[in-house]
């Protein structure tokens, strides 16, 4: 494994509480599964980060090994792999994804507010 790439991935999932690794971008997805995933995430109504793995071949090569997950897209929340497209859709249909995303977004908004207060 390339340690440089792994470090980059670790940093991305640490700095972005909600991040999706996908093919293409949410507005211009390059794969049906990535498109569906971005769509349900957008329907959750909170901002999220994304990495286009087609533009980042090193991440495309290393993340499946690091995550022990063979396919894309991959949704990571608070440094933990939640799953791929089927899991996101299934969680969305059960209302679980909305809750997870809303709670995570609220938590980090609070932290941002606190750090602003401290300044």
């Amino acid at each position, binding site marked *: 494994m390339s340690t440089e790439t792994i470090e980059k991935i670790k940093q991305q999932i640490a700095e972005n509480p909600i991040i999706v690794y996908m*093919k*293409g971008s949410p507005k211009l*997805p*390059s*794969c*049906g*599964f990535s*498109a*569906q995933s971005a769509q349900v995430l957008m329907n959750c109504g909170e901002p999220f980060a994304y990495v286009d793995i*087609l533009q980042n071949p090193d991440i495309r090569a290393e993340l499946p090994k690091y995550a*022990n*997950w*063979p*396919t894309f897209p991959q949704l990571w929340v608070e440094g933990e*792999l*939640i*799953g*791929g*497209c*089927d*899991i996101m*859709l*299934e*969680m969305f*249909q059960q209302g679980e994804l909305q809750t997870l995303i809303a709670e995570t977004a609220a938590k980090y908004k609070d932290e941002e507010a606190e750090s602003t207060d401290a300044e």
Partner: protein
Amino acid sequence: MKIQTQITDKLTSTFTPDVLDVINESHMHSGPAMESHFKVVIVSDAFNGKRLIGRHRLVNECLAKELAEDIHALAMHTYTPEEWVERKDSVPLSPNCLGGSKKA
């Protein structure tokens, strides 16, 4: 052996499923491969008490060789027997491929 048969055999022996449907969806996608995109529906006691990510990891492990060598996409719908009854046998549809990754 056909990949579809291979997948069916492996999943059958690993999960002894109540319901197993291995569907070849390669026709919905761009590219020349005839056995590249699959959807599996599995209903098994092996999923009892496991979160979705845990279930999918089990299937990924079972099909690691096929995922590495043959399969481009694997849609997965994993249920326990109780969940299957609640769902009344309905499974979500997979999306059509947009073909973007083939051009890149």
